């Protein structure tokens, strides 16, 4: 095959990137208002028509066709573990790397009240984890009993201490609930094993949940399973970092994807101790993704402004609080709103700046002196001080006049130095043609082509 047609089903747009694989070039891109809420196939056929027009019938017929989906905000997960710093953190890392979004996480022995929260979270998969191998069993059995009695009708993945795996599965099955088993996510002190869990999450996403109508007919048109968009971007970022057989990678990078409902941050770097600090908590994955459900340009702009403070935000934009309130209402009501004047532009710009600023700080690790007499520096989370480059992707970045100043928000200021583990200096690149998702899909079939289309989109060649 000479061509690939790569489609992303988002909640606002259905996007298409058509690639000439041999020439390693994007030959056409297009987008159409999303149709996932009634029939995803409509948007798909619009994309296909555009691709057919660009490369001709014959090439289209033989083209590789793949798709990602982030419709309805993507895959929603709940994580129940035993402790925040160990099992929950590992569970979150597994879920994020599979492309999911965490809507609820609970540590320790869960109560009836906790159960209501989980039930109310509209999670689509529940991850139950905790306990090292040979470690805790009592807390896991307790949590399984409580969860099995719930009204939840979603699949459960268990990736805790394997010595009670069978008992846990029996508990769920006997109450008519699906339960899948994965290897222990934290087998021992200082070891992390997220891949088996992430694989099961992706598998479930593909087969059960894509949150779009008409998924059956869409899937029939495709040469591979529909992948969560963030999982494809995670893979694309990894390719950018490592490079290919013939191309040197970019080394330590971050990717920021600012969407309407969420902001995703990805980082590719080995976690190292900052200044000799003692690293505690669960080990950090090399390729890490986090997603902030309260940081976005539209649906969640209201939460973002609340976090920053209305007064603060209005002052920064040079507008009144009343104007800000209206502006935000507009964004949450009409999520496809496109800014039409310069004051609105300033508001969008500042939302984006804060989204990057706050999401990066939640993604990054930090150090603190914790034990006075030992005067020891303790590090929690991932050290990103040596990240060299940030890549921005997503609609806002491409449409912004000043994408660089938005993305530079990952940099730390003087007061954060030696505390928050983000870089002081950073190069900024922008995914101008929105191809990261496409490169992530294509990577499995042709790494060189996937890498080359990203290089072009980042204006490196």
């Amino acid at each position, binding site marked *: 095959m000479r061509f690939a047609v790569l489609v992303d089903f988002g909640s606002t747009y259905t996007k298409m990137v058509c690639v000439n694989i041999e020439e390693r070039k994007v030959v056409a891109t297009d987008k159409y208002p999303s149709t996932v809420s009634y029939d995803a196939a409509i948007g798909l056929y619009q994309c296909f028509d555009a691709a057919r027009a660009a490369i001709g019938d014959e090439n289209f017929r033989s083209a590789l066709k793949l798709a990602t989906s982030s419709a309805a905000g993507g895959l929603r997960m709940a994580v129940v573990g*035993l*402790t*925040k*710093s*160990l*099992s929950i953190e590992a569970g979150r890392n597994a879920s994020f790397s599979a492309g999911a979004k965490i809507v609820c996480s609970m540590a*320790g022995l869960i109560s009836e009240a906790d159960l209501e929260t989980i039930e109310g979270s509209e999670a689509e998969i529940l991850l139950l984890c*905790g*306990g*090292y191998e*040979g*470690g*805790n*069993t*009592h*807390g896991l059995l307790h949590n399984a009993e409580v969860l099995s009695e719930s009204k939840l009708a979603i699949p459960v993945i268990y990736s805790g201490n394997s010595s009670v795996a069978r008992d846990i599965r029996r508990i769920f099955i006997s109450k008519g609930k699906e339960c899948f088993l994965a290897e222990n996510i*934290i087998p*021992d*002190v*200082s070891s992390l094993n997220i891949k088996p869990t992430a694989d099961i999450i992706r598998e479930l996403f593909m087969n059960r949940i894509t949150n779009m109508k008409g998924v059956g007919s869409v899937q029939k048109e495709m040469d591979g399973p529909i992948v969560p968009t963030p999982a494809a971007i995670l893979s694309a970022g990894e390719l950018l970092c490592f490079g290919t057989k013939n191309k040197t990678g970019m080394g330590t990078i971050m990717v920021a994807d600012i969407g309407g409902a969420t902001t995703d941050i990805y980082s590719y770097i*080995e976690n*190292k*101790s900052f200044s*000799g600090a*003692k690293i*505690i*908590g669960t080990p950090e994955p090399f390729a890490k993704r986090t997603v902030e459900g309260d940081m976005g340009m539209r649906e969640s702009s209201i939460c973002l402004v609340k976090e920053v403070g209305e007064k603060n935000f209005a002052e920064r934009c040079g507008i009144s609080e009343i104007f800000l309130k209206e502006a935000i209402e507009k964004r949450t009501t009409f999520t496809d709103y496109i800014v039409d004047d310069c004051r609105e532009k300033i508001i969008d710009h500042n939302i984006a700046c804060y989204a990057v600023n706050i999401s990066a700080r939640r993604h990054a690790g930090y150090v603190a002196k*914790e*034990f*006075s*007499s*030992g005067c*020891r520096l*303790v590090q929690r989370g991932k050290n990103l001080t040596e990240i060299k480059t940030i890549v921005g992707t997503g609609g806002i970045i491409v449409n912004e006049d000043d994408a660089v100043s938005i993305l530079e928000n990952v940099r730390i200021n003087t007061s954060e130095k030696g505390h928050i583990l983000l870089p002081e200096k950073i190069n900024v690149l922008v995914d101008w043609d929105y191809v990261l998702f496409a490169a992530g899909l294509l990577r499995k079939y042709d790494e060189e082509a996937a890498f080359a289309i990203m290089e072009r989109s980042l204006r490196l060649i």
Partner: protein
Amino acid sequence: MDIQIKRRFNENELPDMQSVVADAEKIASGISIGETLFMKKHGVKSEGEYKRKMMKAGKITKHTHIGWNDWSTTEQGFKRVYEELEKAGSFIDRFGVCLDWIMGVPENYRDKFQAGGGLIFKTQDEWSAIGQVVPVQPHLGDHMIGSLNGVDNTVNALGAGVTTIGNLAHYYTYEYPGLDMELYRTEDYMKAIAIMAHFKDDGAIIHSNLDDGYGAQFHDLANLVGWAKLERYIAEDLLGARVSHCYGNLFSDSMLRIVFNRAMTMIDKYDTPGSFVNGNTIDYGMDISRNYGALCAYSLADIVCQMKYPSGYAVAPVPLTEAMRVPSVEEILEAHKTIDMMIEKAPYYEKFINWEKINSEAEILVTGGNAFFERVINAMDDLGIDINHAGQVASALKAIGAEQLEVAFGAGLSNKNAMRGRIPIRPTSIIQTINKIRDDVISKQRFEEERPLTGINIVLGSTDVHEFGKEIIKNVLKKAGANVFDLGTTVSVAEIADTLIETGSNVVLMSTYNGIAYSFGKNLLESLKEANLEGVHVIMGGRLNEPIDGSDLPVDVSHMLKEMGINTDNNVETIVDVIASFNR
């Protein structure tokens, strides 16, 4: 496995090898090696030349460390030691002179720091005086090559006629607080080595005390041999200098001292004479009679070795009071006279020693050392480090650290339960001692069949870098059937509570050594309370002390810990019963 590299600078910022060597050559061309009284007396151009003569003549040489604070005391001391020994019909060949730490700092930074009250030389004349007091050859070890001021000090020392100069090992372990100039230091390190290389045919020898550097941190002697090869690779193969490896402080087994000397000779391609073998100071304590025994035991071995296989190493008579104070002239003389008697008696032993066995033991160490060396070099190549660049290799080795090197590339067989995940080919003396304590404890416990801790989960860790106490306890607990979760060393209070929950343990044992026992125990109990883990049993052992009420001196705090409910029995023999009783 993942290698964590704690880089302090980007090694690609180092100048290339050619420009470093060119700079060094330029500096070296302005130096002429001075002549000391010792050189004049023996008609030699360097200490190395003298050593070679003595090796040929089968004569033992002797070394003494001098650690007095100011120059006039040092000068007086030089004279008295030399003269008194002459008077007694004895001799001394070399003085190891300790400089003040500030000498390791470049001159333009010194005014920011408080000097340590040791020897400080300011002018070339002051430097030169060191070899002009008595005909004993001065040796300069610390705060020279490997400090922040290696080039300047090497230039001055060579000018003063000092031709054996240390200390390669210093680069890896000695830090100058408040001066994080690692890039500068590494470049200076390379240059100083290259200057010594320039004078290699004039007898310039770089000394490296393995026991000062990463050497002391290895558990397996084979890896230590491999480490010595790595140091030689940097200084000899990449920069062209000549190296002599000193060892001995941490070698308690007399025969092992001989074996190790043989191994050091086997890995030396250039037959460079050794500097000196340090005394076995781990056996020195407060009991003078026992120290006396230790002095005789180690020196006899060192002497016999030099008689059979002369390798230039001077024998070091360590004064019996060394563990208690800076020795007086009288105490130095006393040690020399003891050793003189050992030199007289050593030939009786030499003939009956099984040299074949010694050499084959040494070969085992060298084979293991080669494996370690190869693995490390290959891995560094894979990690993208330029293995032909001396500075890149040295700084990467430092950034990786001895423990990781040993865990990842050690020569010993992998074993999950062994300390550092490998069974040492030949354990160092410290590890031998630890193993012996462990075996003694285990043999005294009569739970072989019952295994009283079966099914009990326990969390274990150490508050600082010391792991030996923790390892002994871990072995005992495992033997008793417990399921032990090891948090490793430098454990932070913040990680204990969550680990107890994930492991489902209700017992935590912390070993401590660094004088923080009280604060650690107090913070730990607070954090357990916060996590609703008040039922957890806390046991602390090791050195349970801490400075209390603003004083500088740590005092015993076990009664205070006990009042808070922490078990402070500090007794490995009863620990199994104690834990079993918690669960009864």
